């Protein structure tokens, strides 16, 4: 234990300025294990490059339009779960209702095109803005509650929107569905797929960039603090409600964009499929599977889930066992990889590169004192009174 005198090297006093100057304590212990950290960053950079190359060359490599369209579906999943992860990953609010936001984005895009006659991509932008705007009141209501109650509210959001879009048939088409006109009517279907593949890839890149920016920012740290202990974060000066609302709106905006782009690509909207709890759950599953604390977690999850769903379908053919397989996959993730694939890999990686560190001090109190103070500790007899000491340094 360092002796009392050690604490005298007061940071603020050494700056010598007035009372409100922020304290800058003495220089820290250098961070441990700089090598592996740098190595990790290098690996990350390489991974990003490889990933980008893979995505960009995919349309050229895809043997047929079907594979390309499957790629679009996976990219759409990736955008959706990355969008979800703005809320789920940072603040820890698990929303099963993001499917509804995507559906809203899709319907808004479609209705803007059909009813207002806007050009497709203007409609898409308008729809994303609309979804973001609607996310303000929705978030205002939903974010008042936490934890499981929030989950319930988010489920309720899906169900209520389903009811509205089904019942308000005169406007939304109801159960007859809504047909969104093609943005590029002249394109053949394979070409159409290629264009949309790149559009989805671009959207994914933007979403990832936004997530990364938030992740490394003070704002992001504040959000993570909310995830850990909301009241505590508030007492430390984070405007928690505003922060939650902002990130919810961002998340909703991206989700709406993804939903709208999907609508433009897919063309047919039906409330039953647009407002389904399953969509939202898949977003959660993918993000969770990959790792909600990682930038690429949702993307990895989308890849795995996209491929797994396809595989289950082939494997179990026309029995509902594919549902069972999906459920089992989800359960396995929850039970054995609650932090996701990427962190699990990271742990493995760390175990090779770093020895297990212990949280317990490795030196006794006496050694610590000797190391810090060198000589015998100043005892009260030779210690000047506190006031004098502070007086001399200030």
């Amino acid at each position, binding site marked *: *234990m*360092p002796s*009392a005198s050690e*604490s*005298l090297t*007061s*940071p*603020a*006093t050494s700056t010598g300025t*007035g*009372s*409100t*100057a*922020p*304290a*800058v*304590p*003495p*220089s*820290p*212990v250098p*961070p*441990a294990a700089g090598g592996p950290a740098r190595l990790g960053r290098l690996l990350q950079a390489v991974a990003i490059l490889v990933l980008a190359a893979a995505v960009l060359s995919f349309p050229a490599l895809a043997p047929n339009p079907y594979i390309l369209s499957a790629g679009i579906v996976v990219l759409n999943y990736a955008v959706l779960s990355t969008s979800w992860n703005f809320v789920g990953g940072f603040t820890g609010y698990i929303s099963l209702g993001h499917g509804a936001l995507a559906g809203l984005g899709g319907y808004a895009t479609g209705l803007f095109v059909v009813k207002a006659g806007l050009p497709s991509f203007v409609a898409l932008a308008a729809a994303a803005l609309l979804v973001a705007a609607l996310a303000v009141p929705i978030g205002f209501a939903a974010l008042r509650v936490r934890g499981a109650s929030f989950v319930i509210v988010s489920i309720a959001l899906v169900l209520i929107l389903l009811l509205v879009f089904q019942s308000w048939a005169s406007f939304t088409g109801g159960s007859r569905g809504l047909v969104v006109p093609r943005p590029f009517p002249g394109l053949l279907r394979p070409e159409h797929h290629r264009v949309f593949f790149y559009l989805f890839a671009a959207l994914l890149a933007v979403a990832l960039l936004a997530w990364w*920016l938030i992740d*490394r*920012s*003070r*704002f*992001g*740290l*504040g959000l*993570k*603090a909310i*995830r*850990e*202990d909301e*009241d*505590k*974060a*508030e*007492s*430390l*000066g*984070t*405007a*928690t409600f505003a922060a939650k609302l902002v990130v919810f709106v961002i998340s909703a905006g991206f989700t709406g964009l993804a939903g709208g782009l999907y609508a433009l690509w897919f063309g047919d909207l039906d409330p039953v499929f647009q407002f389904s709890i399953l969509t939202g759950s898949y977003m959660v599953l993918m993000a969770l599977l990959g790792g909600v604390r990682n930038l690429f977690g949702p993307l990895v999850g989308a890849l795995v889930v996209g491929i797994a769903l396809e595989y289950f379908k082939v494997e179990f053919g026309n029995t509902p066992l594919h549902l069972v397989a999906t459920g089992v996959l989800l359960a396995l993730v929850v039970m054995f990889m609650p932090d996701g694939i990427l962190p699990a890999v990271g742990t493995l990686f760390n175990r090779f590169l770093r020895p297990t*560190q212990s*949280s317990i*001090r*490795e030196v006794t*109190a006496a050694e610590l004192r000797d190391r810090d103070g060198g000589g015998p500790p100043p005892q009260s007899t030779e210690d000047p*009174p*506190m*006031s004098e000491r*502070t*007086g001399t340094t*200030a």
Partner: protein
Amino acid sequence: MTGIRGDDGTTGVRGHDDGTTGVRSLETVGLTKAFGGVLALDAATVAFQHGRVNALIGPNGSGKTTFFNCVTGMIRPDSGRTSYRDRDITRKAPHAIARAGVGRTFQLCRVFPRMSALDNVLAAARTTGPWSQLRGARRGTEVDRARGWLTRLGIEHLADVEARNMSWGQQKLLELAGVLMSDPDTVLLDEPAGGVNPALLDRIGALVRELNAEGRTFVIVEHNMELVMSISDHIVVFDRGRPIAEGPPSVIRSDERVLGAYLGV
């Protein structure tokens, strides 16, 4: 209850008379809070002076924590007003009060369990305006400051350990480091000594005095009388939700009412 003014000179030994003494720091008028049938705060009128180390003591359940909660906006008082440096903060949100310069710790020690100690401290760093929110969280100077606080509290070896894996006392210290990182002018500490090793407690005491010398005001709720008596300039004693005595340690120690209600001797 305006007793503070006037007994200024009695603690003059500390002599950091930088012109801020005499300015009122936290002040409440008729603060009342009832929980069902329990009157946790009963028209409490209290004033703490700027630049001092104040202590708030009183028996279990006398309303000290509730007082903190009301002052920091975590609980809405039923009636009464709170002000900080002559600005009314009665209905302000907790984060607004925190940004106005009032930091606090919790009695039941709250840290961010799945963040490393370093991130715990970094998360407390102050931001100035919306744009600074977009700055990187792990900038060098901030990290240096955060590590500095960990060092000062003797838990620098835990910088990369997740808070949930720490012992009770370590978490208490971590919480303190976080609040200090947020650089408040006034620090409300709810039982900082609870569960902290005595040797370290001496250091915390010294740290409080030191920070006080830098101009920070403290309000400390504590049952460890040795600590209270040794570091505070001014003591307010609560009983049943209202102050029953206040003054410098020497006065409080011999106050009849305090002896009867609290010290139990």
